[in-house]
């Protein structure tokens, strides 16, 4: 593990300065490939951290937006995955639960364009200063949140024998009243 860190000490040190204290950790898979994990305290630090990776010549691999509802927390998080010389750097940003906003990094990584547009339309994350904030997959004419109104076919078909559909109806009634 120490070898893994030593190879990239400079960039790890700088990214650690952007992260919350005590949140940085390092893992390897069973083939010895390294993964570094950083947690940024606020989305404001993202531009600086991404800038450091850009200067080092890293490549953006993917971004993952997710709700922490499964972990019983209302917050949303975004994990940015970068690759540099075969090593993966993951930057996790915790968003404000009420009003999730994150700065765009498309000016640093051109390929962030699609990822950020997807987060906007499918995860309701607001990306500021995006150069091309059009819809990616959904048509512009669809209202926001339209997919939340759809009832999955499996729930509809099992509506007679499970409680899922009925619970949904009750929840919607509460919302409307």
């Amino acid at each position, binding site marked *: 593990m120490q070898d893994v860190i030593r190879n990239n000490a400079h960039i790890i040190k700088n990214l650690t300065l952007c992260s919350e204290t005590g949140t940085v950790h390092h893992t390897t898979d069973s083939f010895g490939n390294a993964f570094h994990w950083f947690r940024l305290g606020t989305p404001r630090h993202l531009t600086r951290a991404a800038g450091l990776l850009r200067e080092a010549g890293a490549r953006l691999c993917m971004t993952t937006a*997710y709700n922490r509802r499964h972990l019983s927390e209302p917050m949303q998080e975004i994990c940015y995955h970068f690759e540099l010389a075969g090593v993966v750097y993951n930057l996790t940003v915790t968003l404000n639960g009420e009003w999730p906003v994150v700065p765009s990094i498309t000016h640093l990584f051109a390929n962030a364009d699609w990822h950020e547009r997807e987060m906007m339309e499918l995860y309701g994350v607001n990306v500021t200063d995006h150069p091309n904030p059009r819809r990616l997959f959904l048509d512009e004419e669809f209202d926001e949140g339209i997919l939340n109104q759809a009832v999955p076919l499996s729930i509809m078909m099992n509506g007679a024998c499970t409680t899922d559909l009925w619970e949904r109806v009750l929840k919607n009634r509460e919302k409307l009243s």
Partner: protein
Amino acid sequence: MTAMNTGGSTFSMPLGPVHVALEEPVYFHLTVEGETIRKVDLTSGHVHRGMEAMASQRNLTKNTTLTERVCSLCSNSHSFTYCMAVENVLGLDIPQRARYLRVLAEEIKRVASHLFNTAIQAHLIGFKSLFMHIMEVREIMQDVKETVYGNRMNLAQNCIGGVKCDVTPELLVYILSAIDKMKPMLEEIRDIYATNSMVLGRTKGLGLLPQEDALRLGVVGPVARGSGLKMDVRKASPYAAYPELEFDVILHSGCCIHSRTTVRLDEIFESFRLIIQCCKRLPGGPTIASMRQIRSAEACARTEAPRGEVFYYIRTNGTDIPARLKWRVPSYMNWEALGVMMKDCKVADAALITNSIDPCVSCTER
């Protein structure tokens, strides 16, 4: 097809959503000046299936089956990378024999995938006899898949902790004989692509993606390697049996359609080398390791699919249903490069250029 005057000397021309190069829907808005493309805009989303939402409603085992259905030609790469992500999150070490068997299935799929793309290119050029010939040669690999794994497309070979299907010594001999049969045929095909004036006239020097644009857009796979970018996950962060096997990363710096096709054709021979090594050096022992307790953790994994890097991220919450499973397919990174490639090309070349990134719409939209 209707064209709309947008003022001045340029026209806006819709292309698609059906029948651009593949039987998958994507919609291009081309801004053309006479016959020449000046700007490309694309609209996708016709086959968005909500697979990531489905993945967080299924348990880890069921998701192996789901992820294999993200893409057809790269199906094996998806279950492979998904299983690696789960193994990373559980801290599972897979048996040596399973590592080799995973590489074997992956490389067999790569040969069939690259041949399919090359065949479609011949079809788009209008070289029907070459198209039929390549499809016929590819059929040998399809037979191998069916004989060894029981299926022509979704092999269902990967499972969490190893592989499902063990390969007997008789089947290994059969795989080697199929490769012996294919090799001279492919050498002939490679020769046709290198010398035939009709193929060269339609592909050489067209659909240019300069190296700096390839780097800027973060393209992956044969698209990157056809623009001289050395990028191959199998070498950069070796996984499964790749660290123990000998193969070369194929690079061509022509930056054109022909360069990308040559990368694919040369890679088929590297895949043959890998398959032969796997068959000859396959170690004994078990093919699967048992699953461990599921903790709350996160992990990622990446592999080199036929179209380039596949990236998976998983987050578990102590239950057997993942809190989040996210993946990024290689085509997702390559679409934007079409804007650079098609600029200043003829409208007639749009389909060939699109095919040269070996696009997959279904997996892009999931």
